[in-house]
């Protein structure tokens, strides 16, 4: 189904239910995308009291422009994004992951880990880098 169709379907459902969901861009990584900087563990201070769910866009690594994934998460629960690739010629599987937690006043990003099935894993903050954070209002549990 095309994205436009998905959007229309979602909006129609929201109209039927009488609910309104707002999504707002709350933070962007200002490091240029062509030379994205490494991202050590840190706290990003933001007022998140109005938001109940979040979308974090995550670039796979500093050296992979255009390759991003997204993490959809709720508040006060740690979520981790795990970016798994199978390296064909190398014969190993590699995984990049990082844990995020959103509370009322901050987003906590842990260190990123890079693991390979043949050599193990280690902290590598040049992978799983957040490039933007969106807040979502109107989500009911």
């Amino acid at each position, binding site marked *: 189904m095309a994205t436009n169709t998905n959007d229309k379907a979602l909006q129609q459902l929201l109209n039927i239910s009488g609910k309104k969901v707002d999504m707002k861009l*709350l*933070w*962007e*990584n*200002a*490091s*240029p995308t062509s*030379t994205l*900087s*490494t*991202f*050590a563990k*840190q*706290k*990003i*201070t*933001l*007022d998140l009291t109005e938001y109940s769910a979040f979308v974090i866009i995550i670039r796979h690594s*500093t050296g992979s422009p255009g390759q991003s994934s997204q993490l959809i998460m709720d508040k006060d629960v740690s979520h981790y994004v795990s970016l798994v690739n199978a390296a064909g010629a190398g014969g190993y599987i590699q995984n990049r992951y990082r844990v995020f937690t959103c509370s009322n006043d901050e987003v906590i990003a842990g260190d990123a880990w890079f693991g390979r099935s043949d*050599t193990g894993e*280690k902290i590598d*903050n040049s992978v799983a880098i957040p490039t933007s954070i969106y807040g979502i209002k109107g989500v009911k549990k």
Partner: protein
Amino acid sequence: MYALNLDTDRRILSATFEKYSTEGMPKVEVLPEGDVSDYRYVNGEYVYEPLPEPEPEPTPEPSGSDYVTYDEMAKAIREGVNSYGQ
């Protein structure tokens, strides 16, 4: 304009745009060249001070004991075949 997220030693952890800044974040006109986390922001200036590269972990060389001889392998296969169905 940009806003810097600094560590306790004033190393730049990340940079965002001014509109997303919060109280206490230093505002700057330009970001340093390259990886921002290679710099500390001290007295309104960038100090280039990259973190040391982590030591590369040595790849363990396979020792002789990791391999079995041809005879050992043949014996293991024979035992496997002979035990089939038992």
